[in-house]
C-alpha cells in the first residue's frame, strides 16, 4: 500500500516540477501546403509539433497553419504515405510526401492519452476500421472476429443478439466481457444500440500496462472506440446503402416414409407396439407430412442505410449522422430494427475548446419463443401443424403422436415477445490549454436507457406436457442511467533527448437502474373473435414487482511516460479506486502497472537501415467487479408468501442465504513480453506477444456450503472470492503490403494460442471441480472440459458381450445386446457395470490455436477483400445430433440414418431401440445418454468470414455529376466453412462458461450475400 501511495505522490510531484520549471517558448505562426509526389494536394494530413501534443490537419487544398517556435521539428503523417520530419524555417513550407507505410506513426488512443504507435509499450491492437465495417453486423463486437489478435468473438445468428467477446481467455467465472470506452467514457458497451458506421477508430488494450488506467473494470481488456469528427472544410455528405439476404444452414432430415421406417425399427427392436400415429399412417385423417425445419427457418433480409454530414472551419467542426438498420431474421419470429442519430461537434477559441459526442438510438427486437431450432427437431414429421381440437388450434404431442417437445409454430404464433430500447449516450467536454505542453479537460458523460419488454400470450396449448396457457401479458420497463464526471490534466514536454508526457485525473461514476415488471392474466376478448384486450388494466388478475440498484465509484489515476531519444521508453500507471459495491474494508483497491520498451533499431550498433525492431515488456494489475450492489450484506428475503385460513397471502420474511461480508475485486496480474518490428522499409511488419494472465480472488458461486446450514445444496452458493484462473498464450501478427505495382495488395495474418487453466476453485478443500451435465471444470485443467463415458464401438455379437469382463471376471455390460455400444470401464472402486463413475476427460472446448487472415487486393478501380478465420483443436458436443440420432425417443431423425442391424454391422449408429419406463433397457439408455462421448466432435474449422468485391467510379466521371467519390460493392459473409463438424455451425456461442463447447442448438451464424453503394459529395 505504502509503495503505491508513494508512486502516486511521485507522479504528482513530477507534474508540479514540470509545471513550475519550464517557461513557454516564443511562438510563431507557420503555414504550409502538403502535396503528394504526383502534385495532388493532400487533405487531412497530420502535422504535429515534435515533442508536444500540438497537431493540426490540412484542409482540402492541403494547406495548414501551426504555432511553432522557430527551429522546432514538424512531423507530417498521412495514411498511405511515409512520414516526414523537417525543421521549421521562416517562409511557408511546401512539403511533398512519398507513398509508403506510416502505420507506426499512427496515433493510438490508450486511455486519456494518445501516443504514436511506435511509442507503445503495452499490448495494443489497432483494428482497421475499414475492414471491420465491411461486415454486416448489428454490433461492433461481431465485426472484430479475425481482425484483432487474441480476441475471440462468437456470434449468434439471431437477429439483434450480441456476440460473446473474449480477450485473452477467461479470467473470471462470472463476467468475461471486455470494457468499452467510447469517446473517452467508460460506459456500458458498444451494444446493438450503437451504430458501427459512426466509428473512426477501434483500439483494443490487452495487457495491464495499457489497461491499468481503467483499473477496476479492465481485467477483461478494453475496447476503445472513437467516433468520427468533422474536418476543416465545406460540408461533406456521405451516404451508404446496403441490402442483403441471409439464411442459416439446414439439417438433412428424414422425410415421412423414412422416418416411419426408422421409428418402426426402433419400436420393433424393443417389442413396443407402434404408437397409433405410426400404425395408422396413411389412413384418412392421418396423412400429415410436415417439414418443421422449413417452417422455422426463413430467408432474412437486411437493410442498412447511413447518411452522414461533416465539416467545419478552422475553429470548429461537426459530424452528424443518421442510420437505419433492419434484419428480418432467419428464424421464425426473430427480427431487429434500429435507428440512430449522432451529433459530434467541437469548437475552440484561444486556449478553450469545447465539444460533445452524442448518439440517440431506438431499437426494436422480436424475440423467438422457446428455442425454435430445438423445437423443430423435437417434432415428428408425421404430425400436422394444426389441431382444431386443441385450444389455440395447434397440434401438440399426444399418445398417438408422442413427443414431449413444444410445437414451434404454436409457441411462436400464440406468444409474441419483443423489446424496445431508447438510449442516449454521449459526453460533453471543456478543455483549457494554457500552454502547448499542458491542458486540462473536464468531461461529463451520460448514458440513459429506457427499455420496454412485452410479451402477450394468446390462450392455447403448446405441448403435451404443459397445461393450456391463459391469456397473459407480461410487461417490464427498465430505466437506467450512468453518469461520469471526469477531470484530467495532460502534459507533454521535451527537453533535449528526453521526453515526458502523462496524465493525472479523477473520475466519479454513478449508476442507477430501476425496473418495474407487471404481468396480468385472464384478458377479455374483443367481440367474438380471438382478439384480446392487451392492456394490464383489462387483466383479470395482475401481479407487479420492481427493483432498484444504485452504485457509485470514484478513482484517482495517473500515467507517466518517459522517452529517451525514442530509444528507451518507460511508462508507469496507477489507479486508485473506491467502489460502493463492496463492504467495509474492501471498498478501495489500487491497480498499478509498469512497462518498458527498447527500440533496438535506434541503437548505433544496429546496422540494417530498413529494419525496425522494438522489445516491449509490461507487468501490472487489473480489476474486475463481479458483485452486485449490496451483495455483502445479509438480507431478509421478503418475497415469501404464506397464508393460513385467510383469503389473501401474507408477507413472510427471513434470511434465506448466508452473506459474505468479504466480497472484493477480482484481480488480474498480467505479464506481457512483445517484439514489434518491420523489414523491407516497412513493407513487412510483425508483432509477437507472450502473455501470462493470472486471475486471483475470482468470484465463484460454486463453492458449496453444507446444505444443513441453510438448506441450499445446489449452486449458486453464496459468492466467495475463492477461485483462481490462469491464461497463458502467445499472439503473433504479420503484415505484408506492396503498393509498388499496379496490383496493390496487403496481407495480414494473425495467430494466437491460449492455454486456460483453473488453479483453484473454493475455500473448501474438497471442492476440486464444477460439474455440469457434460463437462467438468477441474483444478489443473481448462474450464469446461468434457467429462464423459468413453465408447469403444458397437457390440457385434453376444459372444463379444459375454467376453467383455472386468478383472474379477464380472461382465461389464451384462444386459447389453448386439448393436449396443461398448463402453470402457475406467473406475477403480469395484462397482460393477458402467456407471457415471466411468467418465473420464474426453477433450477440451478450447482451441489450440486460432488464426485470422485478411487479404486486400486492388487494381485500378477494383478492390477485392477477404477475411478468413480459423480455429483448431477444440471439441464440440453436438446437441442436435444427440437428438437426430436418438432412436430411443420420438423426434426428428437424420436423413439416411442406418442403425446397427445384424445385416448392417459396419456402422457407428447403435441398435435402434425405442423405450422408456417398462420397455427401457439399461444399455440402450447408455447408447443415447448425454454422458457418453458419441456426439463429441472436432470443432476445427476455417471460415471465409467475409469476401467483398468493389468498384470505385473514377473521379473524372464523377466530377461531372458533382459527386466526390462513389463505390459499389457486393459482399458475402460466412459463405464457406470448411469443417468436419456436423452441427449447423462450429462457432458455438454457449454463454455458460462451464459449457462453452456444448452446442445446445445454439443459433448458427448466418450466411449472407449483400450489395451496397457508398457516395460522397
Amino acid at each position, binding site marked *: 500500500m505504502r509503495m503505491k501511495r508513494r508512486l502516486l505522490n511521485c507522479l504528482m510531484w513530477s507534474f508540479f516540477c514540470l509545471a513550475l520549471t519550464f517557461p513557454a517558448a516564443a511562438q510563431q505562426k507557420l503555414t504550409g501546403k502538403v502535396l503528394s509526389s504526383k502534385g495532388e494536394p493532400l487533405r487531412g494530413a497530420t502535422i504535429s509539433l515534435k515533442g508536444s501534443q500540438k497537431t493540426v490537419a490540412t484542409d482540402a487544398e492541403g494547406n495548414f497553419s501551426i504555432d511553432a517556435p522557430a527551429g522546432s521539428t514538424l512531423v507530417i503523417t498521412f495514411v498511405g504515405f511515409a512520414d516526414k520530419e523537417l525543421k521549421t524555417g521562416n517562409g511557408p513550407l511546401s512539403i511533398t510526401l512519398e507513398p509508403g507505410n506510416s502505420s507506426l506513426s499512427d496515433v493510438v488512443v490508450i486511455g486519456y492519452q494518445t501516443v504514436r504507435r511506435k511509442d507503445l509499450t503495452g499490448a495494443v491492437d489497432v483494428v482497421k476500421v475499414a475492414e471491420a465495417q465491411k461486415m454486416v453486423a448489428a454490433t461492433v463486437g461481431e465485426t472484430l472476429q479475425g481482425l484483432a489478435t487474441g480476441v475471440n468473438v462468437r456470434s449468434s445468428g439471431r437477429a439483434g443478439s450480441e456476440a460473446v467477446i473474449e480477450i485473452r481467455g477467461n479470467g473470471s467465472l462470472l463476467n468475461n466481457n471486455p470494457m468499452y470506452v467510447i469517446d473517452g467514457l467508460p460506459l456500458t458497451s458498444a451494444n446493438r444500440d450503437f451504430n458501427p458506421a459512426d466509428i473512426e477508430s477501434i483500439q483494443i488494450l490487452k495487457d495491464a500496462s495499457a489497461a491499468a488506467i481503467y483499473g477496476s473494470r479492465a481485467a477483461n481488456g478494453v475496447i476503445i472506440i472513437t467516433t468520427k469528427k468533422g474536418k476543416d472544410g465545406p460540408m461533406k455528405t456521405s451516404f451508404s446503402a446496403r441490402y442483403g439476404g441471409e439464411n442459416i444452414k439446414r439439417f438433412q432430415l428424414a422425410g415421412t416414409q423414412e422416418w416411419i421406417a426408422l421409428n418402426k425399427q426402433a419400436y420393433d427392436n424393443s417389442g413396443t407396439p407402434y404408437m397409433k400415429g405410426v400404425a395408422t399412417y396413411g389412413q384418412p385423417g392421418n396423412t400429415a407430412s410436415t417439414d418443421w425445419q422449413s417452417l422455422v427457418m426463413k430467408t432474412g433480409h437486411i437493410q442498412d442505410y447511413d447518411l452522414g454530414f461533416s465539416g467545419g472551419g478552422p475553429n470548429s467542426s461537426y459530424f452528424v449522422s443518421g442510420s437505419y438498420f433492419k434484419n428480418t431474421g432467419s428464424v421464425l419470429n426473430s427480427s431487429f430494427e434500429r435507428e440512430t442519430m449522432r451529433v459530434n461537434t467541437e469548437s475552440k477559441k484561444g486556449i478553450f475548446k469545447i465539444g460533445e459526442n452524442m448518439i440517440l438510438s431506438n431499437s426494436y427486437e422480436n424475440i423467438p419463443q422457446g428455442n425454435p431450432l430445438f423445437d423443430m427437431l423435437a417434432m415428428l414429421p408425421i404430425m400436422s401443424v394444426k389441431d382444431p381440437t386443441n385450444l389455440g388450434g395447434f397440434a401438440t404431442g399426444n399418445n398417438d403422436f408422442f413427443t414431449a417437445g413444444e410445437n414451434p409454430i404454436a409457441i411462436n404464433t400464440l406468444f409474441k415477445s419483443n423489446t424496445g430500447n431508447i438510449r442516449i449516450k454521449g459526453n460533453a467536454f471543456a478543455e483549457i490549454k494554457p500552454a502547448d505542453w499542458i491542458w486540462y479537460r473536464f468531461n461529463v458523460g451520460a448514458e440513459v436507457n429506457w427499455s420496454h419488454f412485452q410479451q402477450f400470450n394468446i390462450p392455447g396449448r403448446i405441448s403435451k406436457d404443459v397445461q393450456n396457457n391463459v391469456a397473459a401479458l407480461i410487461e417490464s420497463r427498465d430505466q437506467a442511467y450512468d453518469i461520469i464526471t471526469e477531470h484530467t490534466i495532460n502534459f507533454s514536454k521535451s527537453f533535449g533527448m528526453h521526453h515526458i508526457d502523462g496524465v493525472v485525473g*479523477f473520475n466519479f461514476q454513478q449508476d442507477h437502474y430501476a425496473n418495474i415488471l407487471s404481468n396480468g392474466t385472464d384478458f377479455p376478448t374483443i367481440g367474438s373473435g380471438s382478439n384480446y384486450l392487451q392492456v394490464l388494466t383489462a387483466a383479470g388478475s395482475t401481479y407487479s414487482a420492481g427493483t432498484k440498484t444504485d452504485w457509485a465509484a470514484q478513482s484517482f489515476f495517473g500515467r507517466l511516460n518517459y522517452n529517451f531519444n525514442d530509444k528507451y521508453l518507460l511508462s508507469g500507471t496507477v489507479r486508485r479506486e473506491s467502489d460502493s459495491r463492496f463492504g467495509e474494508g474492501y471498498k478501495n483497491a489500487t491497480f498499478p502497472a509498469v512497462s518498458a520498451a527498447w527500440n533496438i533499431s535506434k541503437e548505433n550498433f544496429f546496422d540494417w537501415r530498413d529494419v525496425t525492431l522494438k522489445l516491449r515488456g509490461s507487468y501490472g494489475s487489473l480489476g474486475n467487479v463481479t458483485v452486485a450492489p449490496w451483495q455483502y450484506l445479509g438480507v431478509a428475503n421478503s418475497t415469501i408468501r404464506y*397464508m393460513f385460513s385467510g383469503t389473501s397471502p401474507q408477507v413472510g420474511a427471513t434470511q434465506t442465504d448466508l452473506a459474505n461480508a468479504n466480497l472484493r475485486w477480482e484481480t488480474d496480474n498480467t505479464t506481457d513480453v512483445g517484439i514489434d518490428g518491420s523489414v523491407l522499409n516497412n513493407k513487412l511488419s510483425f508483432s509477437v506477444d507472450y502473455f501470462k494472465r493470472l486471475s486471483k480472488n475470482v468470484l465463484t458461486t460454486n463453492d458449496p456450503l453444507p446444505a444443513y446450514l441453510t438448506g441450499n445444496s445446489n449452486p449458486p452458493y453464496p459468492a466467495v472470492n475463492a477461485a483462481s484462473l490462469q491464461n497463458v498464450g502467445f499472439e503473433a501478427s504479420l503484415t505484408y503490403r506492396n503498393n509498388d505495382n499496379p496490383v496493390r495488395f496487403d496481407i495480414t495474418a494473425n495467430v494466437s494460442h491460449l492455454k486456460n487453466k483453473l488453479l483453484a476453485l473454493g475455500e473448501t478443500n474438497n471442492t476440486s471441480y464444477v460439474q455440469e451435465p457434460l463437462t467438468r471444470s477441474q483444478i489443473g485443467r481448462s474450464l469446461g472440459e468434457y467429462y464423459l463415458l468413453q465408447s469403444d464401438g458397437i457390440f457385434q455379437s453376444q459372444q463379444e458381450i459375454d467376453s467383455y469382463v472386468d478383472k474379477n471376471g464380472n461382465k461389464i455390460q451384462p444386459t447389453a445386446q448386439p448393436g449396443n455400444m461398448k463402453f470402457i470401464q475406467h473406475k477403480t472402486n469395484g462397482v460393477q457395470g458402467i456407471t457415471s463413475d466411468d467418465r473420464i476427460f474426453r477433450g477440451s472446448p478450447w482451441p489450440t490455436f486460432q488464426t485470422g487472415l485478411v487479404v486486400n487486393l486492388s487494381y485500378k478501380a477494383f478492390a477485392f477483400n477477404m477475411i478468413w478465420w480459423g480455429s483448431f483443436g477444440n471439441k464440440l458436443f453436438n446437441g442436435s445430433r444427440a437428438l437426430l440420432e436418438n432412436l430411443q425417443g420420438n423426434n426428428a431423425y437424420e436423413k439416411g440414418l442406418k442403425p446397427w442391424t445384424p445385416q448392417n454391422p459396419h456402422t457407428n449408429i447403435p441398435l435402434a431401440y425405442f423405450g422408456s419406463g417398462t420397455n427401457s433397457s439399461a444399455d440402450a439408455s447408455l447408447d443415447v445418454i448425454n454422458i457418453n462421448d458419441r456426439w463429441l466432435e472436432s470443432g476445427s474449422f476455417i471460415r471465409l468470414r467475409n469476401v467483398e468485391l468493389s468498384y470505385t467510379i473514377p473521379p473524372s466521371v464523377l466530377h461531372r455529376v458533382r459527386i466526390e467519390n462513389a463505390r459499389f460493392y457486393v459482399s458475402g459473409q460466412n459463405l464457406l466453412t470448411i469443417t468436419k463438424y456436423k452441427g449447423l455451425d462450429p462457432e458455438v456461442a454457449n454463454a455458460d462458461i462451464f459449457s462453452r463447447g456444448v452446442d445446445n442448438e445454439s443459433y448458427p451464424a448466418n450466411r449472407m450475400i449483400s450489395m451496397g453503394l457508398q457516395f460522397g459529395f
Partner: protein
Amino acid sequence: MKSSPFYILFFTALIALLNPGCTKKLDIANPNVELADSLWTSAAGANQGVLATYQTFTKPGFNWWVPILKNLCSDEGWSESPYVQLSNTMKFIYPDYNFLAGSVRGKIDDVWGTLYQGIYRANQVITYVPNIKMDDQLKAQYIGEAKFLRAYLYYTLITVFGKVPLVLVPNDSKLVDVNSTEEKDWQQVLQDLKDAEGALPVSYSGDDRGRVTQGAAYALRAKAYLQLRDYASAKTELDWFFTGAGNGLYSLVPNFQDNFTKLNENNSESVFEIQYSDIVPFNPSVGNFQGFDLPNQVLGSTWANFIGPQGVPGCFSDARARRWPIAEFLKENTATGARDPRLGISLVYDSTDVRGPDYTMVYGQTWKQRYNSTAPDLCWFHKYLNDYDPSMQNAEPLFNSPINYRVIRYADILLLYAECLNALGNTAAAYTYVDQVRTRASVNMKPLSVAHPGLSQDAFFQQLRHERIVELMGECQRWDDLKRWGDLDDATKVAALVPGDPEFANFVVGKTRVFPIPQKEIDLNPTITQNPNW
C-alpha cells in the same frame, strides 16, 4: 513563469474537487430489501419469520417428496415412474447417495435441503425473536410455533435419514453437531416439543386458524416417543387429549371424506394440518411454480399431480398403490352389511365404485373406458385427489392443489392411544378408542367390542395393524408404523411384507430402514460418518 499562478490555481481547484465529500456518495443504502438484522426488531418481523418457516411446506422438496417417500417406501405404495431413479429409490435400489439431495433435477428434488431450509428459518425465529421487545404471550407463541416446526422437520429427517446433523443456531457453522446420534436428535425433538407445549395456544381464531396448536405439540411428542417405543411416555402425552386440558377439544368429523378435501378444512378432527391454497392461480405463462420464494408463487401442493391416475391429463402417476390393502378393506363389512366405505375413498381401482369397472369413474371416464383392463397392478391412492368435486372431473390438476395435508388426525390419536394402552397391558381400556374410529357416522363399522371382543394383547395389536391400514392408508403413516413395530428390524418380518410388496425383497435389515446421508454433505465435511452399511 507568468503562467505559473494559473497552474497553481488549476491544481487547487482540482484537488478541491477531488478530496472532500465524495466518499460519502459511496455509502448507498439498499432500497429493495430489509437487512436481516432489522427484521428481528419488531413483532411484525417476528411474525414474518414464522410465516417464512411455514412456507417451507409449499416447496416440492416437502410436499411432493415427503409423501412419496413415506407412502411408497412402505408396502402401501410403489412406483413405475419412467423417472427411473425415482422408481428405483422406492424399490430400495439407491446407487446415487445424493439422489435425495437434488442430484438430478436440482432444487425441486431436494428433500434434504428443503427440510434443512425450514430448520434454518425456524432457527432464526428461535434465536432472534427472544431479543425483540414485544408482547410476551405473542413472543412465546411465535417461538413455540418455530420450535414445533423445527421438531416436525427433524422428525421427518430422522424417519427418512436416521441420524442427521443437529443445527440449532443459524449462521454459525461452528455450533453444528455434525455427528449427532439418532438418540440425540430425538431428544432435541422431544425438548422442542416440550417447549412448544408450554407456549402454544390450544386454538386460534379467524385467519390464524391453521397455525400449530398445543394439541399438535402433544400429539407429535407422543408420536416421537412412539418411534422410540416408549409407550409409557407416549401415553402420558396423549393423556392430554383424554384426561388433560385437551379433553373434548377434538372429535371425529362425521364424514370420513372431509379429511381429504378442501370442503371442511381445519375441522374438529384436525390436530396438525398443513395449509395449502389455490388462491394464487398457477399460470404456466408466468411460471410461478411452488417453492421459488416469489410473491406470486402458488401456495398449493403438487402431490395430486404425482399420484393421480395414469392417463388423466396433468397427472404423472409416479405413485401407485399396492392392491393387497383392498383385501384388508374387504375383511369386514359395515354394520349394515355394506362394503367398508373407506375403500372407495382411499383407493382408485377397478371397483372404487362398488358396482365395478363400468361404474367406477376416473376423471370423467369409466374405468372400463379409460383402461379397458382389470390388470392386477393398476391401483392408485385416492385421498387428496380433487375428483370429489364434480367440476373437477374434466379438469387437469394444476400443480396447485388447495387441499390441506392432515398430518395428524384425531383418528390417528385414538388409534395410537389404543396402541399405547394395549402395549402397556391395558387392552380392555383400549377398545373404546378403536370403537370411536370404527363407528364414525359415515363409516359405520360394528364396534370392535362387538365384532372382536376380548382380544388378547397380541391379537389386539394385530387388529390395530388392520385398523390403521383401513383408516390411514395413503396418509404417510405406514412407514413410521412399520419402523415402530419393528417390522423393518427383522428379516423374517421383512420377508412377510414381500408378498404384498415385492420391492421388500431388496430391503436389507440394518441398512435400508434409513437412506444414506447425502454424499455431498460428507464430501464437504468428512467428519460426518455415513449411516451403517451404506
